[in-house]
């Protein structure tokens, strides 16, 4: 099987510091990591490779420094990686990102599966996975929580359908839905799917030595009008910092006597909000 995992490099945001004056994120000293959810996508891909053979290729679109994300993916067990990097991609929104990545995937060719994270922690959009599937006209399953079965026709001794397929469960609002998709297909995964492994020693060695040559729109055929800011339908017009403080009423209920009145006030509040 040939499996492709698009991964995104994001700032480590679990401890975001904001510049109070400009309302922007302080990036100095902030480490860049693989988007946490993409680790689950990588793990899912590697597990299938281990079961069915083949290779996993990680791809990322980003600045030259995003090469680090590819190396980390290889250290986990991916076989190869592609860094899509160039000025022409700067300012891409999810439409333009989906376009560029879909061209890169077409360029690789002959793939069976694409695993994306559900969403990236910086943008939180969850749009790039479905976007790539749409560009490539691939069957799509989002919110995948279990890979139940992969059916590869030539591996099978039965005379079952001659079409390769994958059966997955998706985690939806009300429960789990089971789908069967013919291959090639694109899946976006949620955390329940597995527990990502740590890099191995041999993986780290391989990651250190591997040659990663950045590719851009010169090496891969792309419509230049669709790239970067120019190819992006959306534009950011304003960035604001949300009010963190609601300025609510904080009542001291730390001593006896004060407690009853505080609880009473809370009950009145709930009534005023029609919660009781």
């Amino acid at each position, binding site marked *: 099987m040939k499996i492709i995992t698009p991964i995104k490099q994001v700032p480590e945001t679990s401890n975001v510091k904001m510049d109070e004056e400009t309302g922007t994120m302080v990036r100095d000293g902030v480490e860049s990591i693989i988007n946490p959810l993409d680790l689950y996508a990588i793990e899912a891909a590697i597990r299938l490779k281990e079961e069915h053979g083949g290779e996993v290729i990680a791809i990322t679109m980003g600045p030259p420094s995003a090469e680090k994300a590819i190396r980390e993916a290889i250290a986990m067990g991916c076989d190869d990686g592609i860094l899509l990097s160039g000025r022409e991609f700067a300012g891409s929104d999810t439409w333009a990102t989906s376009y560029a990545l879909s061209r890169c995937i077409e360029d690789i060719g002959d793939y069976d599966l694409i695993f994306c994270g559900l969403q990236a922690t910086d943008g939180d959009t969850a749009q790039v996975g479905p976007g790539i599937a749409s560009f490539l006209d691939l069957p*799509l399953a989002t919110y995948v929580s279990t890979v139940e079965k992969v059916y590869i026709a030539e591996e099978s001794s039965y005379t079952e359908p001659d079409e390769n397929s994958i059966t997955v469960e998706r985690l939806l609002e009300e429960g789990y839905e089971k*789908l069967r998709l013919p291959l090639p297909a694109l899946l976006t995964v949620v955390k329940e799917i597995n527990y990502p492994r740590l890099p191995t020693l041999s993986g780290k060695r391989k990651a250190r030595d591997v040659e990663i040559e950045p590719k851009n729109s010169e090496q891969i055929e792309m419509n230049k009008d669709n790239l970067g800011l120019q190819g992006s339908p959306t534009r950011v*017009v304003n960035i*604001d910092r949300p009010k963190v403080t609601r300025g609510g009423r904080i*009542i001291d*209920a730390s001593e006896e006597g004060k407690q009853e009145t505080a609880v009473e006030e809370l009950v009145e509040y709930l009534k005023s909000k029609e919660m*009781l």
Partner: protein
Amino acid sequence: MSYQGVWTLAEAKKGEIKRVAFELLTRGRKLADKLEVELASLIISNNVSKEEARRLIEAGADKVYLVNDKRLENFIVENYSNVMVELVEEHKPEIILGAATTMGRTLLPHVAVRLEAGLTADCTELDIEEETGNLLQTRPAIGGNILATIHTPRHRPQMATVRPKSTSPAEQVPGREGEVVEIKYDPGLYDGRVERLSFRTSEGEDVNIVDADIVVAGGKGLKKAENFALIREMAGYLGGVVGASRDAVEMDWITYPHQVGLSGKTVTPKLYIAVGISGAIQHLAGMKTSENIVAINEDPDADIFKVADIGLIGDLFELVPMLNERLAREKEVEKVEV
């Protein structure tokens, strides 16, 4: 023909239109009124009656496009996308709103790519730019640390998904007029590659914390698993569900589907009550857009108080039993009155 009018995508299941469809009408009506254009809703489903569709008209839609077919009974993105692209290309609405549900967040990006449309995810605020008439879409990003406002200057339609529960549903006004247009499904739009095999509902009773109106959440301050009974009791009186911080989940006091926050679920209920939760940024990211927030914590400097509308500083093991007793009494009174 130029692009005109506002559309909302109305999700339906088993013949019934979902609540979130009415929330979208609140948003859509405001935009349509500002632009002085028509507001239409699109239903792609099976067995949705004209009467059911009329509820959307009563709630503010001027028109409802209704596509029923057994092949559309369940959401399969390829099939829905084909229907939607066809109708949008025919009618050319300038704005399309969907809900940021698992369906909306799958279908709209798929459609936006094909229409070369701009799409903004998980918006909490929508408005019209005075000078240009462009849709202004505001959404939280980077774990809720910033609010970005986005527009789509040159492409049409302009598309957005809107966070469920970020606005109240439009009220139905009986007798309000409008038209339900039934559209015959073109079987040529059926994709058929993906097959839906089965569906099972989540185990456990009330883990759907995302859709709940009231969430009562407990954290490490509860000290041990048994004490979650206090939280369950409160949730019971209020008709809410139980949420938790990650630390509570990691202690195995409660299961992961209850976790609120960056690595759990994002909830926007009408009421969120945080008990013994410090209010770490990762927790706040999952609940700070709740309509009303109540906090109970013994530490006056706990960050949870920064986002609280009302906060009680004190020992939860004294305050919560008192509160539960009061809530129980309220219930009694209610019963007597009924």
